[in-house]
């Protein structure tokens, strides 16, 4: 992946400035149509999802009270995993985007909602809604691209440390909610200097995160196991499993949103003075969808409609499916690629990219069974050699 502006064939070179503004207007019209038609059925939808999720969670936790009994463990763990996924994805993420603020129900509002997640809602809203959604896929500005710990672009200099990137990515996936919390705190940046560490704002935010983690972990790893009495350990294991399942699932879905091969990234300078039309086009090129059943869309919190979500982050998620054909039609008419594929393909594609970029530029593509020994030898030399060796070899490639 190379930032769009550096590509030999720019995928939007054929669009005039006028085209881009018309695309923007067409998308604005779609948005307005949905906004004008929001009503009772939409309100019923989100209330029903919340109702089902709460009952599923209650039922599952009740089953886990007797989780010494293996079938109860299985049912409870499966149910709790699904409940936690629904709570984070279709409910929490979307409410915190303000998708349901129009209902004016203080119980379902972006300013009052809190979720089952290590990162407090307020901090997540800042890093996600303000930073990621406005600077989507802009290298150096959108920290969602690799969360600041991964190499996400060929133009980023390769370093042997990146060889561990697939492992890193997997560990991050298992404990994703803590990764998000650390990322919302900008831990990497804020722990770097003494001055930043002492910043009262950072300290207050850290305190909030620790309190949130204490509450969430206390609930899953102490309170509910205690309530289970003799089933203490099975319940603890069940809650841990459900959290890991939820983390792996949400990490996969989110990776599919912006990371599959073919999704574009952008240079920092390219968004200076960006028009509304240009912003829309960047969102169109920077996102990828997951195709699948209604159940799949529900479980991904409709982030399977990542393209639609990025164009209209505050439209209710239950409406993305109906506008998807209209959005795709705009892509088709203006000769842009609408990325959409089944989950397994998108996950594989995203992982392929993680692995490819963990290696020096071009290494994976050039390697065949035949030249494998030579390639491995080259990789070893690049890994063990110093900066100079790497630079020389990269140039030679």
């Amino acid at each position, binding site marked *: 992946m190379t930032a769009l502006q550096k590509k030999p064939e720019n995928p939007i070179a054929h669009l005039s400035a006028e085209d881009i503004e018309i695309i923007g207007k067409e998308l604005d019209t779609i948005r307005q149509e949905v906004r004008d038609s929001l009503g009772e059925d939409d309100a019923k939808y989100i209330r029903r999802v919340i109702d089902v999720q709460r009952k599923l969670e*209650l039922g599952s936790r009740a089953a886990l009270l007797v989780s010494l009994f293996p079938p109860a463990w299985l049912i409870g763990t499966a149910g709790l995993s699904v409940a936690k996924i629904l709570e984070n994805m279709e409910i929490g993420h979307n409410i915190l985007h303000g998708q349901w603020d129009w209902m004016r129900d203080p119980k379902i509002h972006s*300013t009052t909602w809190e979720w089952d997640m290590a990162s407090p809602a307020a901090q997540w809203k800042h890093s996600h809604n303000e930073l990621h959604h406005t600077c989507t896929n802009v290298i150096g500005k959108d920290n969602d691209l690799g969360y600041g710990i991964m190499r996400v672009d060929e133009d980023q200099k390769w370093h042997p440390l990146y060889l561990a990137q697939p492992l890193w990515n997997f560990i991050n996936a298992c404990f994703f909610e803590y990764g998000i919390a650390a990322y919302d705190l900008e831990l990497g940046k804020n722990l770097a200097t003494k001055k930043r560490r002492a910043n009262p704002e950072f300290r207050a935010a850290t305190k909030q995160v620790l309190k949130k983690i204490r509450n969430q972990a206390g609930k899953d790893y102490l309170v*509910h196991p205690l309530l289970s009495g003799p089933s203490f350990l099975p319940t603890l294991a069940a809650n841990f499993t459900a959290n890991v399942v939820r983390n792996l699932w949400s990490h996969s879905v989110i990776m599919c949103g912006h990371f599959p091969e073919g999704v574009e990234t952008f240079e920092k300078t390219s968004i200076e003075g960006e028009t509304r039309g240009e912003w829309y086009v960047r969102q169109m090129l920077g996102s990828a969808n997951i195709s699948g059943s209604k159940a799949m869309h529900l479980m991904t919190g409709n982030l399977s409609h990542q393209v639609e979500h990025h164009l209209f982050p505050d439209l209710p998620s239950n409406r993305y499916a109906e506008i998807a054909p209209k959005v795709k039609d705009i892509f088709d008419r203006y000769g842009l690629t609408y990325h959409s594929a089944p989950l397994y393909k998108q996950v594989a594609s995203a992982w392929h990219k993680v692995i490819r970029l963990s290696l020096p530029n071009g290494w994976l593509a050039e390697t065949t069974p035949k030249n494998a020994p030579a390639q491995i030898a080259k990789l070893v030399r690049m890994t063990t050699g110093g900066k100079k060796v790497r630079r020389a070899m990269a140039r030679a490639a």
Partner: protein
Amino acid sequence: MTTTDPRPTTARPRVALRDRVLKFVEFATTPLLPSDYLDLVDPLRSGADLRGRIEAVLPETRDAATIVIRPGRGWRGHRPGQYIRIGIDVDGVRQWRAYSLTSDLTRIDGCISVTVKAIPDGKVSNHLVRKVRPGTVVQLDQAAGEFCLPAERPEKALFITAGSGITPVMGMLRNHPELTDVVLVHSAPTADDVVFGADLRRMADEGRIRLIEQHTDTAGMLDAGAIAELVPDLAERSTWACGPVGMLEALEEHWTAAGIAERLYTERFRPTVLVTGEGGTVSFARSGTTLEADGATPILDAAEDAGLLMPSGCRMGICYGCVLPLREGAVRDLRNGEITTAAPGDGVLIQTCVSAAAGACDIDH
């Protein structure tokens, strides 16, 4: 006489224990509250936010209906003449309105009722009169309002009402049979449009009240002078009036001129928008929202339309439930055109329900 040292009461440890149990349950449900789960089962239980369930919708006239509501356990009752605020979802959007209570306090089923007249283009009133179904759960506030009879009942009472202005008065007539000398002057377009027409005429037949109906489609409007002619002993009567603003102002003028202003009590349903002007940009720093508001729209309405959660109350400039600090800028009071300005740091408290932007405003919310 002996004195003993005060013994530690047994109540304290018990409260502490209850608190600890509650704390533990909160730990088990965090980040939600136990009440979020209890609401799934019993939204009307005691301790819950005050809500009610609509039990019946009884048509009164072609455009008015009485809504019978079973209030939640937290309902503290009301005095006849008071109103309640009802929050109901219309087309998925929570809307709050105030309506006068019309129910009989002695109802054995414990239900309360409000009577609503559908006004043209009235989002909520039309929904309540024509669409809402029994079983719907609505949000409620405790009863409020001072349009009530004093503890010492007047010997002679006069009620002057028009249209839906009869509703708080009906609440009083139903619950104060001890009033022996009552005159009711009520105006409505036709005989069929009189809300509670049958009940009022029966009360008149039974001799409980003297009823003067004015059907304005055929007989025109009554002015204060005409009322004085119809009720010769008007000056001796305590008077309660409820109806359109124009009518109330005419009455106030007449009563003041007669030197008996203190015997007239009035109730308004809507604020009188008198003065509008240029609007402006309103920013809500803490919510991170900025919007353009015109000079005729209350800031409360403009903010709610933008999806903001705003404190609100009577929506007519009386209860001060909507007050927020204006950090900087200027607002116009829609009732009298008065301009309120704030310099940075002032934090002038303004009533958002009757204030419109008069230039750029920065509101602390």
